[in-house]
Structure formats: structure tokens, C-alpha cells
């Protein structure tokens, strides 16, 4: 009943400005969890706000799960789909849970590595300094460690990486608690730079990223569901994926302003930030154009996850990805 | 026990004794020692035995701290004695018993209830209807001169007024047996005598069994059938006087009665002895 109730709540707010609300009583409700509402999953939100979900007979209820574990409700069957980073499905697969990535919404690495200017302008200067990561085994932390290692420092000895919550990065950097940190979104990178930060490594740049991780691609932002759910609700999964594919298609063809405009119902009062972030995503080709993963991108993801210690051995891509629904969608959309 | 016998021989007038009455409350060989927080032991009662006849009016007199309140607490079942037994109608008392109305020495008005609700408390517990209990309470309040203070909270009353409220709260439920621990301590002589008359009337009309603790010897003689003298700690019962003054007694006038004066002098001397032994 937990879901039923929350569906009711969002039925009103998810679709406020949407003409399709009229049909909402016929739509099938799906619950999608997210750790934070980020533009890097833009197609999923666009599928809702542009009415693609509704066209497929779906209505999405987005549940933000900031504290605790955003994956848990999906694994526990309380929610249907989850938006996460690629490391999460790998992690739970190794822990014996069966989940599949259905769509990837980004194709390039979205993080940057920024030092506190004007003092720390190179990675070498970070020796003996404090560098912020998110949770110890989170992907920002491994990204930072990888970048440091690539510059010839020992990430375990030469720097200290405390846990700092992402909203605290700018604060910690501006009062000198940390010498460098990861920029996790276009907007955050912008904010760090605005507050005097210096770009140490721009992971969004394919060349720079390849130097560190051996791949230009990196499909980080994904949507997943459990095998059990996919097995039991193939039609729903197909409808959802099809709608997302439509959104990807729309997104590929639209300008930053159009995308921001379309996202706004789910990103209230965030116009300014979206404009910056989405422009950066466009500039750096971060948004995925087909929602699919690449072999090199997956290898990089495995490497990063192993560095973080969240998985211990390679996991075959087939165990993690199920792009058959996506293929069907593209076929249907004539691509 | 010996003390009681000794006294009965001494007792001036025997005629009342002849109408042998049923024993209502019987205290058998009570010993009680308190263990205080700091580990000290205080032996309060030492082998105390006492029989209280049905419809008797017994006054307990004894030095401060000798164990009078403790004895009442034990008789009412509030305290379990270390040793000994209390029988009510020949049945051992276990725990408290609502046949006894106990007006304790401490101020036990409920501070969050105004006067009338305090007086009505016992009736409320007995599920008497609101109307009836307010009627009874109001009558008693008027009787003790507290009209106009029905809605006052205890902290707004004077010491004597609080005592009066406590008294009528006990009387309101009309208990079979009445225990009163210094009911009139902080009352002026006028109010006191009026209330004493009331108690006497109540007792005579409804023939209750009354146990009464007081420090005022003349009060004890004025009211009681029997005056029981307790010694200093560890208390034993020293003597037990019958008071053969005729009933009904007038509280105002009895003090000039020659028998009264004679009795008072006698008991007084007995007590003086006790005090000297103590000193």
C-alpha cells in the first residue's frame, strides 16, 4: 500500500501542467526512485513531462531517496525502476541480486576534478593534502583517486580523502578544509570554478578521460530494474523504455533552452542551474544519443568500481545489461 | 498486652466494659523497623497489640515520632509490618481496604483539583453520580465554613483550610471505620470545637469505629471512649484508659466537668512519669 499512497500524492504534482492528466486514471503507475533529481537522467524526466510515458500508457512517480539507500526500494519490490550510477547494478549483482540496466542516459564521464585556486593548480601540488570524496566507496571518490594516481601520486599515501557531502564541497573548499574535490555536475563544476577553483582534470573531455581510464566512453547514469520485475512485467518495461527512447530522440534534436523548458515541471525553480548544466552536457556530448552502453565504457566502469572496492571481480556485461527492450524501442521508432 | 491488663484494673469505672462489644480491628504483636536510605535502622513499633471494638472511639496519644502514624499505616494496610498481623472482622488484612477512611497526617490534597473536586474525590472513585457527589461535597464544604472556596486550588488555601478540606474529603464517603491522624492540629479553637462536635455527632448517630491520633490530651479525653498511651520509640502500649464520661458530651462544657478534670490529672501524671523516664 506504500506505493499506492505515494502514487496518489504524485498524481497531482508530477503532471501539473500536463494535458494528459485527463487520462491519468487509465495510466499505469510506475514508481521510479532517484538518489537526487539530476539533469543527467534528463530523458527519463522528459518522457514524463513531454507525455511520452502517457502515450505508452504509463505514469511515472518519482521518489527521491537521498538518505538511506536509493536502490533498496527497487530491490525490495517497493519501487519499479531505479535511477543510479552504473556501479550500483554491478555491486548488487556481485552481492547476488539480479538486476538489469535498461537504459543509459549519459555516454561520457560527467565529473571533473577541481583544485582550490590559486594554491593548488596541479595534481602534484596536492601531495599531502586533503581531497574530498563522497562516500569512501562512491564513484566520485574513485574518480579522484584515479586522477591522482594517473598523475603519479599514491592515492592511499599522498592524499587524505575524507567523506564530504556534495553540497559541502564548495564550502569546504572555500574555507580551506580541502585542497581539491570532484565536480559532479555541470553546475557544481561551474560553482567551484566561480568560487576560485582551478580545473585539474576535466573528465568530460574524452582525451583526458581516456588517459586515465582507457576509454573515451563511460555510461554512468542509468536506469535499472530487477530481473524479477522485468520477467513479470515485460510490457510495462517495454512501454517505459520506448517512452525513454522517444525522449532521447527528442533530446538529441532540441536546444538547451527547449530541454530546460521541458524539464521545468519536475525541476521547479531550478532554471538557472539547468541552463548551466545542460549546456555543459551538450558542449561535452555527455548525454547518450542511443541509451546503449559500449564495451570500452563498461570496461572503464568495471575498472573504476574495482578501484573503489565495491566489486572484486569482473562481471560479464550480459549479467548487468539488458538492452533488448531498447532495441525493440528503436526498431519501433524506426531507427 | 500486660499493659492493657494492668490498666483495666486501674480503670476507674467499669460499667461500660460490661456491654461487651465485638472486636472490629485487632492488631497482633506488631513489630516494625524502618530501614533508612543511609542504612540506619529505626525500630518504630515493638510488639504492639491492640483490640478495637466495633463502634469504639479510641484515641492514640504518645510522644512525637513514637510510631502512631506508622501504626495507623499498618492497620490500614498501607505498610506491611515486619512482623505481626492485623485482623479486620477477624480476617487478616492484606493491602489497603476501602472500608477504612483514613485521614492521614500529611497534606494529601490533590493539588490539581479545586476544593469541591477534592472533597468529591472519594465519591468519584465510588462512581457516585456527578450531581449527587457535588451535593454531598457542597453540604460538607458549607458545614466547615469553606463556602466560597469551592473553586480554589489547595495552594490558595490557608493551612487550617486545607486541613478542613482533607477532613471532609474523608467523611464524604461515609466509611465504616475512620482513622484520623491529628485532624485538628492547625485549627483554631473555635473551628476545632465545632468540628469536634460534628465528629462526635457523626460517630454517635452512625456508630462508626474511630481511631484518633492526637497530641492534645484534653481533646482525647473529650472525644474518646478509650485513650491509649504509647511510649517513645520503640513504642509499646504503655497504658489504656477507659473514659467513662457520659454521652452525649458537649465539647464546650465538658472541660469544666469534675470527672474530666480528675481524669486529665490522672493521665497527665502517668504521662509525666513517661516523660521523666525519657529525659
Amino acid at each position: 500500500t506504500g506505493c499506492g499512497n505515494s502514487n496518489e500524492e504524485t498524481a497531482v504534482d508530477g503532471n501539473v501542467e500536463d494535458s494528459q492528466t485527463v487520462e491519468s486514471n487509465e495510466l499505469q503507475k510506475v514508481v521510479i526512485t532517484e538518489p537526487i533529481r539530476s539533469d543527467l537522467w534528463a530523458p527519463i524526466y522528459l518522457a514524463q513531462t513531454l507525455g511520452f510515458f502517457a502515450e505508452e500508457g504509463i505514469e511515472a512517480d518519482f521518489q527521491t531517496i537521498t538518505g538511506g539507500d536509493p536502490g533498496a526500494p527497487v530491490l525490495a519490490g517497493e519501487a519499479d525502476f531505479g535511477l543510479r550510477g552504473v556501479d550500483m547494478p554491478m555491486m548488487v549483482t556481485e552481492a547476488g541480486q539480479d538486476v538489469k540496466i535498461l537504459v543509459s542516459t549519459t555516454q561520457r564521464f560527467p565529473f571533473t576534478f577541481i583544485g582550490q585556486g590559486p594554491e593548488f593548480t596541479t595534481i602534484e601540488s596536492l601531495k599531502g593534502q586533503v581531497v574530498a570524496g563522497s562516500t569512501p566507496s562512491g564513484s566520485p571518490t574513485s574518480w579522484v583517486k584515479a586522477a591522482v594516481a594517473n598523475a603519479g601520486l599514491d592515492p592511499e599515501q599522498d592524499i587524505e580523502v575524507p567523506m564530504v557531502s556534495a553540497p559541502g564541497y564548495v564550502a569546504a573548499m572555500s574555507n580551506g578544509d580541502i585542497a581539491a574535490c570532484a565536480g559532479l555536475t555541470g553546475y557544481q563544476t561551474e560553482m567551484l570554478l566561480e568560487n576560485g577553483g582551478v580545473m585539474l582534470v576535466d573528465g568530460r573531455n574524452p582525451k583526458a578521460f581516456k588517459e586515465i581510464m582507457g576509454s573515451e566512453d563511460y555510461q554512468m547514469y542509468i536506469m535499472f530494474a530487477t530481473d524479477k520485475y522485468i520477467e513479470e512485467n515485460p510490457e510495462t518495461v517495454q512501454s517505459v523504455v520506448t517512452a525513454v527512447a522517444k525522449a532521447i530522440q527528442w533530446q538529441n534534436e532540441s536546444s538547451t533552452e527547449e530541454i530546460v523548458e521541458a524539464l521545468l515541471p519536475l525541476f521547479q525553480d531550478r532554471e538557472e542551474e539547468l541552463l548551466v548544466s545542460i549546456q555543459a552536457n551538450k558542449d561535452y556530448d555527455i548525454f547518450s544519443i542511443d541509451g546503449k552502453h559500449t564495451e570500452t565504457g563498461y570496461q572503464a566502469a568495471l575498472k573504476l568500481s574495482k578501484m573503489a572496492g565495491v566489486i572484486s571481480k569482473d562481471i560479464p556485461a550480459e549479467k548487468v545489461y539488458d538492452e533488448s527492450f531498447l532495441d525493440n524501442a528503436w526498431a519501433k521508432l524506426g531507427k | 498486652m500486660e499493659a492493657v491488663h494492668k490498666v483495666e484494673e486501674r480503670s476507674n469505672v467499669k460499667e461500660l466494659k460490661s456491654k461487651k462489644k465485638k472486636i472490629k480491628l485487632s492488631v497482633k504483636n506488631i513489630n516494625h523497623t524502618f530501614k533508612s536510605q543511609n542504612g540506619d535502622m529505626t525500630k518504630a513499633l515493638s510488639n504492639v497489640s491492640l483490640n478495637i471494638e466495633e463502634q469504639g472511639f479510641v484515641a492514640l496519644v504518645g510522644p512525637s515520632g513514637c510510631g502512631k502514624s506508622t501504626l495507623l499505616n499498618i492497620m490500614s494496610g498501607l505498610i506491611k509490618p515486619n512482623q505481626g498481623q492485623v485482623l479486620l472482622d477477624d480476617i487478616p488484612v492484606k493491602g489497603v481496604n476501602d472500608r477504612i477512611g483514613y485521614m492521614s497526617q500529611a497534606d494529601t490534597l490533590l493539588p490539581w483539583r479545586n476544593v469541591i473536586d477534592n472533597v468529591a474525590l472519594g465519591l468519584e472513585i465510588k462512581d457516585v453520580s456527578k450531581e449527587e457527589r457535588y451535593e454531598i461535597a457542597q453540604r460538607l464544604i458549607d458545614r466547615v465554613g469553606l463556602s466560597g472556596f469551592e473553586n480554589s486550588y489547595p495552594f490558595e488555601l490557608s493551612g487550617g483550610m486545607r486541613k478542613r478540606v482533607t477532613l471532609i474529603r474523608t467523611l464524604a464517603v461515609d466509611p465504616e471505620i475512620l482513622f484520623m491522624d491529628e485532624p485538628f492540629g492547625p485549627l483554631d479553637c473555635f473551628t476545632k470545637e465545632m468540628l469536634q462536635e460534628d465528629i462526635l455527632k457523626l460517630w454517635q448517630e452512625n456508630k462508626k469505629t474511630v481511631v484518633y491520633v492526637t497530641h492534645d490530651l484534653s481533646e482525647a479525653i473529650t472525644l474518646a471512649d478509650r485513650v491509649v498511651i504509647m511510649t517513645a520509640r520503640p513504642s509499646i502500649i504503655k497504658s489504656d484508659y477507659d473514659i467513662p464520661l457520659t454521652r452525649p458530651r458537649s465539647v464546650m462544657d465538658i472541660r469544666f466537668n469534675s470527672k474530666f478534670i480528675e481524669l486529665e490529672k490522672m493521665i497527665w501524671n502517668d504521662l509525666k512519669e513517661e516523660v521523666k523516664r525519657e529525659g
Partner: protein
Amino acid sequence: MTIKYFKLRTMDFVWSIAVVLIFLVIWEVSVLTGKVNSFFFSSPSLIFKDIVRMQQNGDIMRHFGITVKQAGYGLFFGGLLGTIAAIMLGMNEKLSNILFPIMVGLNGLPKLALGPLLIIWFGIGIQSKIFMSALMVFFPFFFNVHAGYHNVDISLINTIKMMGGNRFQILSKVIWPSCMPWLIVSLRTGVGMAIVGAIIGEYIGSSRGLGWMIMDAGGTYNTTRVLSCIFLLTAFMAAIDYLIKFFEKKTLRWRPSIN
């Protein structure tokens, strides 16, 4: 008396507002003169504008309403269960000695860490937030009423016993009124806990509410929005306290007041 009481309260209220205003003016001036960075601290005028905007686009009602509703249920259930648990443990000393340390232990759990379990048990609907809120409220009620219970004047209990009162009557006529000061302080702490609980519940999973909004804004460096929410919350709870104070005054007028 009531009118005079309210007059007095109004004066105090004006003064409270004045204190807040002075604080806001200092803050605004510090931002304007650049002493304080508005990126981190926003400014009263920005916050004010933001609140006006939220009011106009209906966000306040939408997000505030649901959080207050969750907190309300949480306060009710948490308070009720905390009080009942305290009294039950009070009446049974053995049980109390056994369970009390466990309660103390549970009180210190980081509630956020319970997130996944909470979702499994209660889903991500309103129940999980109510549960979290109730859990936070439970403890101040439990500990305070428990302490109140042990502070009851025993001679009053004996009085009721002597009058033939049963356990329930002892409870309702002595223990309950005598625990009132303790209950009121629980209520006071509880109101805050209820809101915090509802917000934490929203962190664990939600699609709207103040907690959702704070997290959303916090993640995107929208300090103004975070502080708007905080400001609204503070004002709301201060207002609630006037109600509690009034209730306290009515309930505890049997107590001579310290002057």
C-alpha cells in the same frame, strides 16, 4: 484573565519578532557590505522574495502541508505510544529494569541508517514518514513521562488506594495530572522531533515535502531555498509554541507560579 493573558502574550510576541528582525537586519547588512558571502548565507531579502514566490506558485502549501501532516500523525502516534510505554514500564518495575536500557540504546540510533529497513517495512508512502516521525517523537515522551511517573507523590497514590481506587483510577486521577508538566515538555520537544522525523523520512524517500525540497535545493547550491524552508519551519513551530503555552497555562494553573 484570558484577555489580559493574550495582551501580555502579544507584547512578548512583538518582542520576539523584534529580536528576529534585528537579527535579519544584521544579516542583510553583512551580506550587503560583503562581510558575509551570500552564496553560502543567502540574505534575508532573497529569502523573503523566495518565500513570496513559493507562496504564489503554491509550493508552500504543497510541500509544507504534507510535511506538517506527516509530523502531525507522527506526533500523535509517537506521543501516544511513548506515553503508554512509559506508564506501562512505570507500573511494572521489573519490566522497566529489563527494557529500559534497551530503550536508551535505541534512542541513540542514527535514524537515517534505518532507511532501507524502513522502506521494506513501510514502503515509500506516507507511512514510512509517519513511522520515522513517530520514532523520533517516541523517545522524548517515553523518557519524560517515565521520569514524571517516578516523581509522583506517593502519598497521593496511597490516598486513592485507601479510597478503594483501582489501578486505572490511580492512573487517571493522580499519575496523569502529576505527569502533566513532564508531558508538556515532551510535547514541546516532540513538536520539533516530529518535524525533524518527517523530514528525515522524506530524505529516505519522497516526491514532495519540505525535506524533499531542502534536499533538492541543497544538492543544487540553492542556499536561499534551504533557508526559506528553515525559516518557514522555525516560524511555524514558534507559532505552535504559543498554543502549547496557552495549554500549559490552562493545565498547570493549580501550580503556584515562580515570579
